[in-house]
């Protein structure tokens, strides 16, 4: 069975509104054994959109991301109900989940510089998928580190350990690593939690650039970050998707549920 599903044909920007959604989530529910983490979520994420997800802790944001690249198979007790379509295809129909995951890049809350060299950190995913030629890997490593705004800082010490970089550098290394597999979808889970404000702004600039090439789902606990980046935002609260809407509209107070406004105004959470 061939596991290179057609790279979604249209690379039309969502601004033109012509493309079908890259991700369609239908009635998604997630539970850990008996504990329900998320219930009845239905959202679409069009291509080339930065889709924000905000909400307090334990609202199901991270579980949502996990479900998107089927990481549930690595979490014991995690059950996913409902349907998720990726490029029009039910993600449960991917016989080879590794192929799905390699089309989805993930950035975790805490920077994870693997205890490998900087070079090997970025070359790991291409190597896992069978790339061996040094010249090809060199190209990928340089391009990804450049796009993650890290190249200039590390180009002279690619052999030193990625885990010894500063937190902000490690987070950009993580982004470079996520980019190394040419993902169509980039998932960011509260990437700025352990990163200084300057680095946060740099990464936000990177994301604005990346949006031209891929779709981004941004989970964040900083509502202003969602406002700066996301064209649409979903508000999760205690396992419920309270609202999905145009980010600016939400901030203007154009909401369906007043809890959204309460959260955005900082009255709780």
């Amino acid at each position, binding site marked *: 069975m061939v596991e290179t599903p057609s790279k979604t044909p249209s690379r039309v920007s969502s601004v033109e509104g012509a493309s079908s959604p890259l991700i369609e989530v239908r009635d998604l529910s997630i539970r850990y054994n008996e504990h329900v983490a998320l219930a009845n979520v239905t959202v679409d994420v069009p291509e080339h959109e930065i889709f924000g997800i905000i909400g307090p802790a334990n609202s199901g944001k991270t579980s949502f991301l996990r479900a998107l690249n089927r*990481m549930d198979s690595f979490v014991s007790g995690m059950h996913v109900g409902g349907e998720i379509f990726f490029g029009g295809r039910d993600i449960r129909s991917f016989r080879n989940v590794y192929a799905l995951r390699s089309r989805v*890049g993930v950035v975790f809350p805490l920077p994870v510089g*693997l*205890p*490998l060299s900087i070079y090997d950190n970025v070359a790991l*995913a291409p190597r*896992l998928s069978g790339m061996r030629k040094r010249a090809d890997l060199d190209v990928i490593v340089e391009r990804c580190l450049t796009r993650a705004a890290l190249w200039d800082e590390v180009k002279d010490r690619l052999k030193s*350990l990625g885990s*010894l970089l500063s937190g902000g550098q490690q987070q950009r290394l993580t982004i470079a690593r996520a980019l190394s597999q040419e993902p169509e979808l980039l998932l960011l889970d509260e990437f700025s939690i352990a990163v200084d404000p300057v680095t946060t702004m740099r990464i936000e600039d990177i994301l604005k650039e990346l949006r031209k090439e891929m779709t981004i789902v941004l989970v964040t606990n900083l509502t202003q970050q969602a406002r700066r980046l996301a064209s649409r935002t979903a508000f999760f609260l205690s396992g419920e998707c309270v609202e999905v809407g145009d980010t600016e509209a939400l901030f203007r107070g154009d909401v369906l549920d007043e809890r959204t406004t309460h959260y955005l105004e900082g009255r709780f959470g």
Partner: protein
Amino acid sequence: MSMFQATELNERNKRKEKLFRLLFGGMTILLIVPVVVIVATLIARGGPALSWDFFFTAPSNGMTEGGVFPALVGTLWIVAVALIASVPLGVAAALYLSEYAPDNWLTRLINLAIINLAGVPSIVHALFGVGAFVLFFRFGTSILAASLTLAIMTLPVVIVSTRESLQAVPRAFREACWSMGATRWQAIWNVVLPNSISGILTGVILEVSRTVGETAPIMFTGAAFFLPFLPESVFDQTMALSLHLFVISTQVPGVPEHLPYGVALTLMGIVVVLNSASIAFRAYLRGKKKW
């Protein structure tokens, strides 16, 4: 009253602090005493027996003269074969338990069984070895049977220490790999194993130390009372230092005193040499690991 003045309570706590410090320190010194006495006695009485001839000649004249060469070689054989059998097996089992197995009652039962296996007396392992390896598998009394018996006995040490060092590698590293489309094995090979190898070696070190000195498990399964030839294959019987020490100390009349002390010192020497080598190697590997 100045706020820095010691209160009655402060004074009492200070006295207690002194008392406990003395108590714990005293216990530690008590603990060291037997070790020092043993090592000093061995060196004082066994030291004069050691020479190249002692290491490289066979016992002679009813084991009242000569050296330990066949026993020394036999011990190294037994240890080596036991390691070859138990390390791959133990590491594989630990990898399964730590990286693949779901956390359910069955896994917990298996873990419990492994810990209990470590508590089985060595003589029981010896009898199991006789039944399983010597008789059932028809290996006869041989290095192979003795080593496999030892391997079974030391497997829990290897499994437990390997599992613990695997679990010391942060889960975030694995998740980072998995999220890139790595299989469990790819994550293990690329990230988990390179960062737990030093801990795994610790288990191996412990195993070696235990294996060198064990007597009961090998005396029925492969170690010979007196056999002044070197083993040629794993199906041969062999002498072993630990059994040799037992034999010349208790079973043979007329052995000069320096001989058993020399054997004991040799036995300890092997443990010290093997341990130091592994500790040095481990320190070297650890120096490379950083996160």
